[in-house]
């Protein structure tokens, strides 16, 4: 096995009752990189994370290979978990204990000496800007503080791999930026990061590689910037009210890709000049022009309609 590959997954399947949660998924993450899973709710992102640290059991299948640091979670879950930190999607802090106690109990799980644990806990509370909340009961923490505390808990053992399942969902922009900064500074120390997110911005900011997953299957994989270049036009014009719009002249309509979403019409085109030609004929305030982003790509790939599991 290549020593630099931290996570190596090939042909993973997972079925819940009759639902195929993962269907022949493969990917690999080199050491020190940030790899992001993007996908709608119910796409299988969390299931994949859980399989890596043995919180979920994959289907047995002859082709399947799952290796984390060279260990198979089916046989060596403890070795993996001892080297990894996990930030789960749901807050699962111990509400019976306060901030410091939550971390102290976890230091026992990692078999840390109390002196070292105290030092490490101080560092982490400082790193996550929670020092003032040391003695606070969990119920009194805001959503952002809980999230930061869970990240601190995942970092106790100085993990070489950090698994983050929607680390910033539901948080305000300040906290989100703070968490992103912390993740970036961890990466400087060669920590490998595996991330799931709905926020395209988050994936774009943090990840060197993204994998778009839908209905348990890989749809696209690659560097976010090159994926944008390769799979979607660079510019888009959004019309805010489709009822006020008559048709485009045929010469222009050929040059753009048209999508409709609710009340809006979107025209995608590689050439900004074409976009501006369309814009010239429109009344001010009824449209806006922007560069395309991962969200456009994501919606193009996974479709605009909700499916059952969302």
């Amino acid at each position, binding site marked *: 096995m290549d020593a630099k590959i931290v996570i190596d997954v090939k042909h993973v399947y997972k079925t*819940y009752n009759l639902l195929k949660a993962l269907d022949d998924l493969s990917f690999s993450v080199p050491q020190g990189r940030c790899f992001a899973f993007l996908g709608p709710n119910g796409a299988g992102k969390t*299931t994949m994370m*859980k399989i890596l*640290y*043995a*919180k*979920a*059991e994959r289907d047995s299948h002859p082709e399947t290979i799952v290796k984390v640091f060279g260990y198979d979670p089916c046989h*060596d*879950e*403890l*070795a993996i*978990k*001892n080297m990894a*930190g*996990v930030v*789960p999607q*749901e*807050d*699962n*802090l*111990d*509400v*019976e*204990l306060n901030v410091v*106690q939550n971390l102290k*109990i*976890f230091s*026992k*799980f*990692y*078999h840390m000496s109390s002196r070292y644990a105290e030092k490490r806990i101080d560092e982490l509370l400082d790193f996550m800007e929670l020092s003032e909340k040391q003695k606070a009961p969990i119920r009194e923490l805001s959503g952002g503080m809980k999230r930061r505390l869970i990240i601190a*808990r*995942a970092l106790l053992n100085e993990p070489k791999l950090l698994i983050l399942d929607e680390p910033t969902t539901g948080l305000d922009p300040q906290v989100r930026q703070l968490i992103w900064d912390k993740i970036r500074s961890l990466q400087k120390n060669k920590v490998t990061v595996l991330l799931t997110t709905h926020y395209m911005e988050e994936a774009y900011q943090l990840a060197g590689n993204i994998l778009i997953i839908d209905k348990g299957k890989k749809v696209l994989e690659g560097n976010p910037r090159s994926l944008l270049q390769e799979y979607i036009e660079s510019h888009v014009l959004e019309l805010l009210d489709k009822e006020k719009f008559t048709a485009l002249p045929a010469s222009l309509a050929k040059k753009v890709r048209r999508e409709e979403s609710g009340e809006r019409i979107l025209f995608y085109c590689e050439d900004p000049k074409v976009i501006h030609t369309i814009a010239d004929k429109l009344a001010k305030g009824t449209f806006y022009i922007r560069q395309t982003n991962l969200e456009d790509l994501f919606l193009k790939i996974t479709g605009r309609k909700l499916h059952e599991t969302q």
Partner: protein
Amino acid sequence: MKHSKQLYPPLLVRIGSVWFRHMRVYTKNLISNGLPPFLEPLIFLAGIGLGLGLDLGSIYGIPYPLFLAGGLFMTASMFTAAFECSFGTFIRLEFDRVYDGMLAAPVSANNVLIGEILWAGSKGFFFTLCVLIVMSGALLVLSVENIFTNFLIVFIPVFGFINGVMFGSFSLLITSFVKNINHFNFYFTGFLSPMFFFSGVVFPVHNLPPVLKQLAEIFPLTHTVRITRTLCLHGLQGKYPNMDVNYLLRADLLLDVLYIIVFIVLISYLAITRLKKRLID
């Protein structure tokens, strides 16, 4: 490959950490959590032992309060272990998601559940010890008997632990079937309460009608009660020559020990196997 010792914490540390978490949470509210085991036996002894005992006088050759005391060591342990591994476990599993947190650390689902059962046993030990202290004090004050003269009573808290492990694992097995927390009412009123009355705690089993007697032998509580009552009374035979032979140390108590061993192995295995499926997706 490196030796496994360096790869992750050893088994005892893993199980011990789970146990430590429960101990830490329990001792946070020591007054409110620690008072019941001291008060409950007193209430029982006063309510039933004195009230009924005064009229009954003695039963099978010993004063009734002494007979009752011999049974109450185990009920405290039973109820505390049962609460811990039914309502307690369910809340940690479904509402607080404590186990999900633990399972992100180098701890396996087996470790978590074994820690749970050992914690139930530890509470059983603690409660039985409290009851022993309170009960022997009360019996002394009421000048019924001084059971301190009998060295065998030091083994009673040990059976408090074993009894806690039995009811801890049995309650975990019940919990593995429960989807709605209110269903525990069936367990407590439908199973534990009848067991309280038909396991020889408040009246002896060996004189029950044959059908009930067989039923009593199925109940786990009967076996630990029989052993601990013997431990409590055996040394007193000199003082009560008419004491029933059933309260003396004898070889058939080994059958009770065998029952206990088989029960713990079988039930904890089933409980862990079933509950693991709810911890791991």
